[in-house]
């Protein structure tokens, strides 16, 4: 009985990492109250916007790049068109994530904008981000201190299992959603992009703002993902971390295949 009670309390304690229903309401209220400049202020204190203000040059360059590459879908004033959503208030983090992982500019429509090799240099990406953020502020680029992978891996792994594993699989190997959408594999994704994904919630991924997961929580999650990446499985080759299906397939093809081949060889007549 006592251990059951313990389990319960443990469950409750893990809940703290989760979105409280009231938190959402409160957040919307706050969002409505502090619009515009107040929103920017709120944001810079809680989400860690890059302190360095973007130079005017950078914004100008971003503006040009944007009209040339993005405006057809997102509109000249970021207001959005039928081909793409409004980018007002998505912030530098969203642009850096979308452009940095090659998702934007979108090439062909599908259920989900796929990752592809990044189409822009780091400077151009930064310029685009600066431009979009200059029109209407939003979540900024994450600060380096949260990206160093020096957090608490245990806590991060637990948060990951609770908040992310249902879509991304416990080992971050990815998983299927409905209608051809999917949560991609997280191996090889940079710490910055992981952070930005959590802050901006690309496409079907929910937003994990700082009320859900504090920047320290995010740092822990990144730490645990990086731990998995840097420490190959102690058991040997991982078979894609896909779980029992991959193991079963491997067993039938390699294991049983080898054995059947050996039985054939053993019983083959020497003539």
């Amino acid at each position, binding site marked *: 009985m006592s*251990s*059951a009670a313990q*389990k319960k309390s*443990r*469950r409750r304690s*893990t*809940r703290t990492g989760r979105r409280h229903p009231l938190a959402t309401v409160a957040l919307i209220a706050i969002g409505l109250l502090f619009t515009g400049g107040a929103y920017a202020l709120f944001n810079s204190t809680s989400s860690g916007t890059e302190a360095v203000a973007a130079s005017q040059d950078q914004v100008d360059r971003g503006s040009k790049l944007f009209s040339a590459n993005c405006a057809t879908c997102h509109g000249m004033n970021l207001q959005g068109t039928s081909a793409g959503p409004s980018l007002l208030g998505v912030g530098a983090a969203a642009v850096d994530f979308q452009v940095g992982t090659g998702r934007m500019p979108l090439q062909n429509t599908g*259920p989900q904008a796929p990752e592809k090799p990044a189409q822009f240099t780091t400077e151009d990406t930064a310029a685009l981000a600066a431009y979009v953020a200059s029109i209407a502020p939003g979540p900024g680029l994450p600060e380096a201190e949260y990206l160093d992978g020096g957090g608490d891996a*245990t806590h*991060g792994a637990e948060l990951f*299992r*609770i908040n992310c594993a*249902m*879509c*991304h*699989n*416990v*080992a971050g*190997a*990815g*998983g*299927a959603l*409905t*209608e*051809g959408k*999917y*949560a991609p594999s997280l191996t090889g994704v940079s710490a910055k992009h992981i952070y930005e994904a959590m802050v901006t919630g690309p496409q079907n991924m929910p937003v994990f703002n700082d009320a859900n997961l504090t920047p320290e929580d995010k740092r822990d999650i990144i730490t*645990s993902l990086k*731990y*998995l990446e840097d420490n190959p*499985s*102690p*058991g*040997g*080759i991982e*078979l894609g*971390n896909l*779980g*029992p*299906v*991959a*193991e*079963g*397939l*491997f*067993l*039938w093809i*390699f*294991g*049983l295949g080898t*054995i*059947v081949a*050996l*039985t*054939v060889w*053993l*019983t*083959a*007549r*020497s003539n």
Partner: protein
Amino acid sequence: MTTTTPETPTSTVQPGQVQPGTQGGAVGAISNYLDERTSISAVVKEFGRKIFPDHWSFMLGEVALYSFVVILISGSFLTFFFQASMAEVVYNGSYVPLKGLEMSAAMNSSLDISFDVRGGLLMRQVHHWAALLFIASIVLHMLRIYFTGAFRKPRELNWVIGFLLFVLAMGEGFTGYSLPDDLLSGNGLRIIDGLLKGIPVIGTWISYLLFGGEFPGTQIIGRLYTLHILLLPAIVVALIALHLVFVVVHKHTQYPGPGKTNNNVVGYPILPVYAAKAGGFFFIVFGVIMLMAAFFTINPIWNYGPYDPSPVSAGTQPDWYIGFADGALRLIPPGWEWTLGNYTFSLNVFLPVVVLGLFIVAVLLYPFFEGWVTGDKREHHLLDRPRNAPTRTAIGAAGITFYCGLFFAASSDLIATHFKMAMEHVIHILQFTTVIGPFIAFFIAKRICLALQKKDREIALHGFESGRIVRLPGGEYIEVHHQLDAYERWKLVSFNDYQPLMLRPNDRGEIKTSQRLRAAVSRWFFEDRIAPVTRTELEAAHSHGDHGDHGVVEAKDEAMGGAPHIRS
């Protein structure tokens, strides 16, 4: 290849030619000592003279046997360190990303085995890979028995024993998979809990009984452990022993071939040739398992973390052999649920359970069904080539298709992501495969069998085309056909030919419904058939020598041919 007992195709190997083991020295003294007290030599001699035919597919049962031995060895090692308790402890072992986390003692000890017991991880992986291999080889063994008709009289009971072993093996696998109390297996248990609760009326009670209260409770791991290491293995060992006794008593079957008849067995005597081979083969199987365990991760529980009812991971699947059950749950259309007053009837859970139950029972009863259809009471020690039993083979193909549809459904999410398809499409395709696929597979397999039989028949009668065209003195062109020699032809012409049972009134002149049913099923079974070549046909074909006319000699039975038939 051992060639100490040369085997000639024309004569059966005589038992009794076996060289007894060396008699001198300490070994001789010890065996003498034992023999004088137990008369064991008679048994060994008798057993050693048993002949075991040589074919790769006859070794599949052995693969199962040897992987089971490996399971026993590695499993015993694991019991030294595993703690089957759900008491909460704080993990303090050497795997950093779990340090300081609360978890059950079972999970804690599994992690310790993986990271802090020397050789522990290797043993865990040996145990798990061997378990997967065990069940896979059982399935393949079973398919071999099925498609060659090795289950016919007198071996029906051994089929039943084998079937029980198959079910028990799945039970062993599932209980073992659940023991570490990690997130993945916890989700699996949750599904079992759901399945139980889906049973009308008594479901909830059964679930409470099994888990000792509300899921997950604090009991289940201990209970599964008792099943896993005590009860199930004891039954499995006993049944394997019985199974092997039956194999010895019945003698092994053999494929049709020259000199092989229903009344003999051609092959190597067990001692020394076969035993030596088998002993070597054990180490080969062991070696393959070791290789897999040493180089490939299996069930990385440290990734999954301890069980906690709230998180569910994407890509949660059971081990492959339970996949068909998981798949059935995924394929059932959503919303098949009715509420009646206070009760909910979850057909979406219960129906798959019923369908799978029926499928399993069908597998169990097939030998008796076929015996009833053919009305054949003879003993069969010669195997069928699958093509020579077209309807059986076709039923088997249908069963495999059904099973595979369910099996692949268990990985529908991975199919969707890896082949870039929408989840819904994957499910629809697999629903089609599972429901309509078996009929298509039946039809195709049967046609292929009949076509192969037809080809055999033609080759037996006319030999095969040599591609050499000869002009006769008269100006006529013929293609030279190579005739088979008697050995090769034997294989093609000697098989059982069943005809649909005739409806005959019994003594009192009545025809009972059961007889009608039996005649109808028998007609369905045997209406399309290719009769084996008879001696007269052969003589007729060969009396006018190699002739150019190599059209198919049709069997007398009108029913054969390429056109599809409407079955009743």
